């Protein structure tokens, strides 16, 4: 494992923090780490800050992420990586669509020109909407507590998709699915970053697979075209035990 001293912990709302640490390793937007919290577990977390002072942004969902957001400056962070296929960042005019903590992995893509759709269940869960240039972001919440009331897709509908070179999407799989369905016959190219259970991060345990591809090595980013051919996308996944279940709304 790589061990680094935490130089800063920034609180982002109620249940989310960004942990910063110096690590001189090239990491590309879209890649992730397997972050280990001894005596808890090891979980996949995207790199939200890819400069020399790296950062990861963690939202508390369960046991391990809850414990991780309690880490403090001076504590150690243990991880392995970087893993995964990064986003292709060459396209110039970017449209960034993030749901919930999915925005963490999209943060490194935000430049002054980027346009964003940031969605969450409720206003206090919105992440990184403030990082876009003024007037460049559309906010959407399930409960309407901020911005448009609805789902990410509702934020997208008002945008001129043909003005972008690439759409980048990250969030719950059903959100990704609804967006893929929406753009399937539109000319905009898109890359999606998926999340599934990840136990190994290196392509051996099969817990993260979708249609025979491993999210951890061949993903987590996939293009629109790649996802279109997949039966399991938005329909089925395996649980921690390996049991096949239908995908429900997170």
């Amino acid at each position, binding site marked *: *494992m790589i*061990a680094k001293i935490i130089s800063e912990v920034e609180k982002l709302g109620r249940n989310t923090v960004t942990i910063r640490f110096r690590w001189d390793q090239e990491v590309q937007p879209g890649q992730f780490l*397997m972050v*280990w919290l*001894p*005596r*808890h*577990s*090891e*979980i996949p977390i995207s790199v939200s800050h890819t400069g020399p002072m790296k950062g990861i942004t963690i939202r508390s969902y369960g046991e391990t992420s809850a414990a991780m957001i309690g880490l403090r400056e001076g504590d*150690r962070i*243990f991880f*392995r990586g970087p893993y995964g296929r990064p986003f292709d960042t060459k396209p110039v005019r970017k449209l960034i669509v993030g749901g919930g903590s999915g925005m963490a992995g999209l943060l490194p893509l935000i430049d002054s020109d980027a346009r964003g759709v940031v969605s969450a269940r409720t206003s206090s869960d919105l992440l990184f909407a403030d990082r876009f240039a003024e007037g460049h972001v559309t906010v959407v919440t399930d409960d309407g507590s901020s911005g448009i009331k609805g789902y990410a897709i509702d934020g997208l509908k008002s945008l001129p998709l043909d003005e972008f070179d690439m759409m980048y999407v990250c969030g719950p799989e059903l959100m990704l699915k609804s967006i893929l369905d929406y753009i399937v016959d539109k000319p905009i190219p898109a890359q999606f970053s998926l999340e599934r259970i990840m*136990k*190994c*991060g*290196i*392509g*051996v*345990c*099969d*817990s993260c*697979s*979708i*249609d*025979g*591809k*491993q999210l951890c090595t061949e993903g987590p980013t996939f293009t629109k075209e790649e996802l279109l051919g997949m*039966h*399991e996308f938005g329909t089925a996944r*395996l*649980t*921690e*035990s*390996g*049991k*096949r279940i239908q995908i429900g709304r997170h």
Partner: protein
Amino acid sequence: MVHIDTAIAGIQLSNPMMLASGILDENGYTMLEILKKGAAAVVTKSIGTSERTGYKPPVVVPIQGGLLNAVGLANPGIDNFRDEMKIALSGNRPVFGSIFGATADEFLQLGLKMEEYGATAVELNLSCPHVAGYGTEVGSDPVLVEDIVNTLKSNLKIPVFAKLSPNVTDIVEIAKAAQKADALVLINTVRAMSIDIHARKAVLTNRYGGLSGQAIKNVGVRYVYEVSKETGKEIIGVGGIENAEDLIEYIMAGASAVQIGTALYTQGKDVFSRIAAGLVEFMESEGFNRISEMIGVAVE
């Protein structure tokens, strides 16, 4: 003209390579993909009688020369595995159902289900913890091994493979206890552990784990050689195979076919086609026409 097809327990294989149990074989679609990538057959993840989530991660740790794992027998339970078998079998290649249990009865129950699901053969994973003995495995008790193998052989129509553990004093004794099996699979992982010196703690949640990959190749070759020499049984070699030379070493030590696991991590999924090409090249330059001409040639 060089032919790389082979057979094990009467089952034809288009080449000597199959996917090892526990690596990329929990989801039926992944097994299909591995078959497309050139594996002649796949072995499923080891399945037990009931659903288990296994240990919390870290369950796999990359180390120098291989992997350490302690997955904790995570599996959906045999009843939930029917769909995955169906998907995998749609590849029209052999699918071997790996099963684990603590008693002959548990193994039998699982074996019958695998047969019902259409498994081409069952592979008995004899490396799960032995309830009776402390720190040892089912596979280190020759009486239990014999009971399990014989029970399955008398009740199943499909071939039965017994996968042995290297963590024993005398593997020949265990191999002889499993002599009714149609083939022996050698070896499972070697007991090992990794400590993170900064965390001052074992990395695997289970602390102890199994070592696989390059580090154990010569250990595997040794067991294949010894068991082949002492029992003459058909053997499937496994442990650290990463290239054609490794595969040939196992074949010359007495294996009729091999399994590949950790190399999916170190070499990627093209490992099957790359090894197949290297195998053909070797056979051509060394004047071998069929795999059978190479099996056990180094044993003396």
